[in-house]
């Protein structure tokens, strides 16, 4: 796999994530896929369930890729994630608010499939935009 192929795989992964495209996920994620999330490691099935929590609560989801860096078997994407809060999310009834947060996604690719995945979503900003957390923090 070249860096360009790995970048294209990352773009397809981001599209599958917001589209909740289970067929694409099966193609893109290796059977021994591991996602390193804030709550701990997830396998392919638990990762897809986790992804679905957001896809159920938000509509009009979109990843905008701001930067894409590839080297060897890894790709990193700096993105902006958008979604409109349209259904219950962690007990919060739909607010109709459009949320926009930054997210870093990193994937390791082997034999044309994603074998490892890391992500950092700015959940604090999401909570602030949803009104679940008080006033924005001062810049440090």
């Amino acid at each position: 796999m070249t860096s360009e192929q790995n970048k294209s795989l990352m773009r397809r992964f981001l599209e599958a994530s917001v589209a909740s495209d289970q067929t694409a996920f099966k193609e893109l994620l290796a059977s021994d896929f591991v996602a390193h999330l804030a709550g701990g490691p997830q396998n392919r099935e638990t990762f897809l369930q986790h992804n679905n929590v957001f896809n159920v609560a938000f509509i009009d989801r979109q990843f905008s890729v701001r930067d894409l860096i590839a080297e060897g078997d890894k790709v990193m994407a700096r993105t902006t994630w958008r979604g409109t809060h349209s259904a219950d999310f962690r007990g919060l009834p739909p607010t109709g608010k459009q949320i926009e947060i930054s997210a870093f996604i990193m994937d390791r690719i082997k034999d044309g499939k994603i074998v490892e995945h890391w992500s950092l979503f700015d959940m604090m900003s999401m909570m602030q935009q949803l009104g679940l957390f008080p006033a924005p923090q001062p810049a440090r």
Partner: protein
Amino acid sequence: MTAEQNKAIVRRFYKAFEANDLDMLKELLAPDFVAYNLNPQNRDEHLQGIRLWNGTFSENRFEIIDQIAEGDRVASHVILRCIHSEAPYQGIPPSGKQIEGPAVSLEQIKDGKIVERRVYSDRLGMLRQLGLVPPPQADR
């Protein structure tokens, strides 16, 4: 500059941050440096932010888990560990608690100096560890 040289510059930046070596940090950042944090910061503002952080948290350690470089850009995946021991942070008095969290930084290097940084850390996770935010439900 090669990708490996650019990665080494970013590693030197993190070492100087740990050591609170502001002269070295200033040398590593270009005069027209910009950090895109919550608000954009110029070089002096960024150095001031680091001084403030090091005056609040002690024993800052950045464990660099991974670096990916392409062209003039370097992405670093790090784990930050530090102790809230020195001064209040967002109204919380120093507790002696050790906190730990993932961060990703994206640096652009030009002529051996960092011209741009974008950093995202798990701010929500760190505030939870400091006791400011209730425990997680389903972070992504």
